[in-house]
């Protein structure tokens, strides 16, 4: 039976859904239930990773260290993971203290064509003896051959695996298969996939990735995450089992963990709103949905128009300022009566 390593970013990607306001009690409760279910890796932190708490991308209720400590105390068999984007996170200020708190797994992410930025952080974590993976975000924006070149960089830096992240939930299963297979065929390290559900395809894309040779898949309890949410982990675990994959996760206890998430974390179960669907079609980072809807109300424009324009301009995380710029342009056109 083929094995799949599950990495659960409920307490990291899910933080987007509550505007980075996860509490210590929520972190502790979910970490304990995920640990009990045998989830191999539990990822914790600000939605944009270590060191990202800011006005630009959201101020976190808790400091990174506090979240990690709360999770560490409740993870006895599951590994504690972190996610970081160089630029948000620095080695001395952020990564070193996190490793000192007992982090086991480090994921270092970049935009899908900027893997060079991950060299120092991957190298540092590796030198500290940690399990290190590279992540390519917004992977729908690059062709398979470019993704392979970027993954080869991460492999040379010391990453033990690479994860393609479909940050916008924009991919179709055949695209996932093609890209994952290219990596599996040419890399000497593990390949993983992190899906989002903007087009309702998160589970399908995850299965496509597994069938193409991916051995690492991500999912969050109840799909807890920004916008349309992530791959619902309890569904993924069940479907993988039906397909004959072994995740090592106890299904009943995973369903219990989803119940804990539903009761304690999730204010509302992720739905594919029209904005989320459009962000998937437009290829826009899922976490843009909330600020887009807010700005759209302020400027009295259609959020879907903002999203399509963001997609046309190939906006990526960190370029949230474009939302206001575009909303302003749309509002001006509207007031002039200019056809958009």
């Amino acid at each position, binding site marked *: 039976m*083929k*094995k*799949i*390593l599950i990495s659960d970013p409920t307490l990291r990607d899910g933080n987007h859904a509550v505007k980075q306001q996860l509490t210590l009690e929520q972190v502790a409760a979910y970490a304990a239930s995920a640990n009990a279910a045998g989830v191999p890796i539990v990822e914790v932190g600000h939605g944009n990773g270590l060191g990202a708490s800011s006005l630009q991308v959201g101020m976190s209720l808790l400091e990174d260290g506090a979240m990690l400590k709360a999770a560490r105390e409740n993870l006895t068999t599951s590994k504690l993971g972190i996610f970081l984007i160089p630029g948000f996170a620095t080695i001395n200020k952020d990564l070193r203290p996190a490793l000192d708190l007992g982090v086991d797994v480090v994921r270092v992410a970049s935009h899908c064509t900027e893997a*060079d930025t991950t*060299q120092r952080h991957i*190298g540092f974590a*590796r*030198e*500290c*003896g940690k*399990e290190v993976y590279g992540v390519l975000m917004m992977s729908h924006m690059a062709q398979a051959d470019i993704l392979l*070149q970027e993954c*080869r*960089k991460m*492999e*040379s*830096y*010391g990453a*033990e*695996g690479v994860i393609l992240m479909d940050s916008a939930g924009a991919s179709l299963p055949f695209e996932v298969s093609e890209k994952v297979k290219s990596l599996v065929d040419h890399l*000497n*390290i*593990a390949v993983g996939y992190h899906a989002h559900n903007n087009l309702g395809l998160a589970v399908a894309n995850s299965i496509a990735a597994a069938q193409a040779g991916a*051995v*690492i898949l991500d999912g969050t309890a109840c799909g807890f995450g920004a916008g349309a949410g992530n791959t619902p982990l309890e569904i993924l675990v069940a479907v993988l089992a039906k397909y004959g994959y072994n995740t090592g996760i106890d299904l009943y206890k995973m369903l219990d963990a989803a119940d804990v998430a539903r009761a304690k974390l999730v204010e509302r179960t992720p739905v594919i709103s029209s904005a989320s669907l459009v962000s998937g079609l437009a290829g826009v980072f899922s976490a843009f949905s909330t600020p887009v809807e807010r700005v759209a109300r302020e400027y009295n424009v259609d959020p879907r128009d903002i999203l399509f324009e963001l997609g046309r301009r190939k906006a990526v995380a960190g370029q949230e300022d474009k939302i206001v710029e575009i909303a302003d342009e749309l509002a001006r056109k509207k007031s002039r009566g200019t056809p958009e």
Partner: protein
Amino acid sequence: MKNSAHQIIEQDCEQVLTGSVEQLGGMRGETLLITGGTGFVGTWITELIAHLNDHYQFGTRVKLLSSQESNSRFMAPHLGVRKDVEFIRQDVRTIADLPVDVTLLIHAAASPDTRLHASDPLRTIRVITQGTDAALAAAARLPRLKRTMNVSSALIYGAQSWEVNAMSETYSGGLLDCSSMLSSYAEAKRVGETLVAAYRNEHRLPIVNIRPFAFIGPYQRLDRPWAINNFMRDGLLGGPIRILGDGETVRSYMYASDMAFWFLRILLDGVAGRSFNVGSPVGIRLKDLAEQIGGCFPVPIPVECRGLIDGKGKRSKMIPDVGVAETLLGLSIKVDLETAIQRTLLWNQKQSGKNE
């Protein structure tokens, strides 16, 4: 007073020279220039020559040409203060002339670091192709030049077929995808060899070509992205030693003192125009290598296969056939792998002060 880490180097130099000093007799009184001289290869050759000078009165002078010249960046600062060692700060790509007293030249300027090849393929290509052209052009103008060596790479062979035990200098079975930027280093080294042939033809340059395989020893940084380096680093950090894959890939490793001796011997007596493989012909599975390294510690370090969850991995092999060097020059491996590992670990421990 020499520190205990350096005593290891001294012992290694004396061991490799035992019974073989006069095989390097052609170095006496000569002036050797090494491009890329402050790297691993240049440092070890300089150590060996320093030992020959100190203990056997060879009177050889060494000039180390590098874009990173200062003593503080040189791996062995004690060499930088020697009167018989001179630094020349120069980018190999823009060499115009070399010192006129140079009689022997080793062109080794290039980085084998795959991280650099992946991140900066254009610079990788330019340093090798432009650098080789500039170095050989300058060499051709040296009035007293006796011998030159181009340090190529085993990667020019492409992937070794699993059915082939070892690659000889005539191996042509491997394929390189020249349309991929991932081939930047290997393809640039192939161009380098073609430049060597052209300079030999047009300028009658007395040049020999070597194709190094894999080495291990003191002065090699353990953060380099190579299996044996990573295994040692994992071991020194307390483990576990992590193998990416299932450990079935096969490699071979030559100890640094053997490497330095072979380089100099081939420089002096290798037939001009020929290529020589330099490396150990004894292959080992990475899994066995990791276990061997793990067993070198007082409490054996466990080994883990990571990265491929279903236990299967891609395997590859890279082993040199060194029959040409053995037959024509009588070269042999004097330091076995077990000793190489132990010496390297000991040096690293002494460098970090853990085993004084």
